[in-house]
């Protein structure tokens, strides 16, 4: 039983990271209709930015996180302006190809700038061991889970109660009507991309703290996609739940079966969800686009 609970908790911590990245992805998709294949690479960028803040600028951890988040936000806004705004109105496939190209460019650029070696944060978030009964948790796991809860809640509140959040919801649902009502869709898209990049960067900071910073972080970031699909392509809470599920499934299958089987279990679960409920767990049955 302890074995199961221990794995469950580890899975939730890791799943929170996937959930954060997935959240950013869904956000961008809902607001701008862009299927961002580079989302996992933005996670890697976040980790490397954090590394730069810590190792090159020698900032204390808290300051480094803030600096990384701000830089990620600016990067997201720039990506929207430079890459996605000019592509507005283009067919879906064109935009998808652009995100794939972006993904490759980011991966290549990271290797050129930082080399291919594993790097590690010179100072990390607190990672002492916390014992709760027979369960052993890393403080880092708790911080990650806590942060994810805070982030998701913050975004939920943002969407529900702020004017900008309302504008984003309106634009996502009916861009034409939103324009008629005086909503500047360009600004909405920029904000969406900024937030989407920030959540991915946060995932990168956490993942880089859990393990090492390397080009393979991009691949781990790819696990956000099953999370998105399971949760429902248009549901923000769904993406987080999807991420948690994927994380837990990964850990449980690694614990009860073998490492090899883990991927099979995760993707079989994904397939099962899609077969039984094509819109994902919390998605809407069909996405209306006018």
């Amino acid at each position, binding site marked *: 039983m302890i074995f199961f609970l221990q794995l469950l908790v580890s899975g939730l911590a890791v799943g929170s990271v996937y959930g954060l990245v997935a959240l950013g992805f869904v956000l961008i998709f809902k607001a701008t209709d862009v299927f961002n294949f580079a989302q996992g690479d933005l996670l890697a960028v976040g980790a490397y930015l954090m590394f730069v803040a810590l190792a090159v600028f020698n900032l204390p951890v808290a300051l480094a996180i803030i600096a990384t988040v701000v830089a990620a936000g600016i990067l997201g806004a720039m990506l929207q302006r430079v890459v996605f705004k000019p592509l507005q109105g283009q067919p879906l496939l064109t935009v998808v190809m652009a995100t794939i190209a972006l993904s490759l460019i980011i991966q290549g650029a990271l290797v050129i700038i930082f080399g291919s070696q594993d790097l590690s944060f010179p100072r990390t978030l607190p990672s002492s061991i916390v014992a709760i009964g027979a369960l052993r948790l890393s403080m880092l796991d708790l911080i990650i889970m806590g942060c994810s809860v805070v982030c998701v809640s913050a975004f939920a509140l943002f969407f529900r109660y702020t004017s900008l959040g309302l*504008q984003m919801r309106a634009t996502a*649902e009916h861009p034409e*009507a*939103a*324009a*008629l*009502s005086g909503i500047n*869709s360009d600004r909405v898209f920029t904000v969406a991309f900024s937030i989407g990049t920030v959540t991915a960067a946060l995932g990168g900071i956490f993942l880089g703290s859990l393990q090492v910073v390397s080009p393979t972080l991009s691949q781990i970031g790819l696990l956000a996609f099953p999370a998105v699909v399971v949760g429902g392509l248009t549901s923000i809470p769904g993406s987080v739940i999807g991420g948690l599920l994927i994380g837990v499934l990964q850990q449980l299958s690694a614990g009860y079966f073998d490492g090899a089987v883990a991927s099979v279990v995760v993707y079989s679960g994904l397939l099962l969800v899609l077969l039984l409920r094509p819109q994902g767990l919390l998605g809407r049955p069909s996405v209306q686009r006018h």
Partner: protein
Amino acid sequence: MAAIDAPATALLSVSNIEVAYGRSAPALRGVSLRLREGEVVSLLGANGAGKTTLIRSISGLLKLHSAKVLSGQVNLDGARIDGVAAHHIARKGLSQVPEGRMIFANLTVAEHLQIGALSAPVEKHEMSRRLVLDLFPALRPRIDDQAGWLSGGEQQMVAIGRALMASPRLMLLDEVSLGLAPIITRSIFEQLDRYRRETGCAMLVVEQNAKLALDFCDRAYVLDRGRILLEGSAADLKADPRVQDLYLGEAPGEGSAYTFRDAKRYRRRTRWLK
């Protein structure tokens, strides 16, 4: 019939525009239209005559539909607005109740009003909201319901309310009566009239229901195949035999049931007008 010249200080002036979608033949040719402060003008015409295109040219939605103004100008309050983004135009005091309502199904009625108010100064929000709920009391109990669940009539009220929240100087109303029972339509137009009297807001009303429109407006234009066919005061047009024949129809009290056969007949009979 002589066209009535509006004075140079028109609120809205469309001057000789030619509009085309993509590389197709122009959907509007040499169309001119003027509207003064506080006036109500109707735009009549058959399906496909170009009414929606004209509305899009004014509200800035041409680009979204891959169309553009090839020549001519559209001016709002003296400033040129053709080619300007829709959200900028909305913030200049132009509101639209679009064809098909275009409501946000997942947002509540209250949120619709909130969105509509984005273009208006904050001081006016509360007053506008009270006015809207006064005009359409049916919305009061539904204020926190998601708009997708409302009836057609209620949704139309939400769409109009959203437009009113901006305290516009000019409202574009595109096929407000579409799909609604006559009794509801009448009630809505009554409230629009009341709004106009209280605020002096100008309106450009696109309607297939010509009788309703001509009863409501001061002046009207008739659009046919991308050109202005007729223009004049509501009274003059109501008396015009061509308008009577084709738009006001025989069935009393009904909106125009304009069929394809009618269109063919009309075309044959008006060949001499060109």
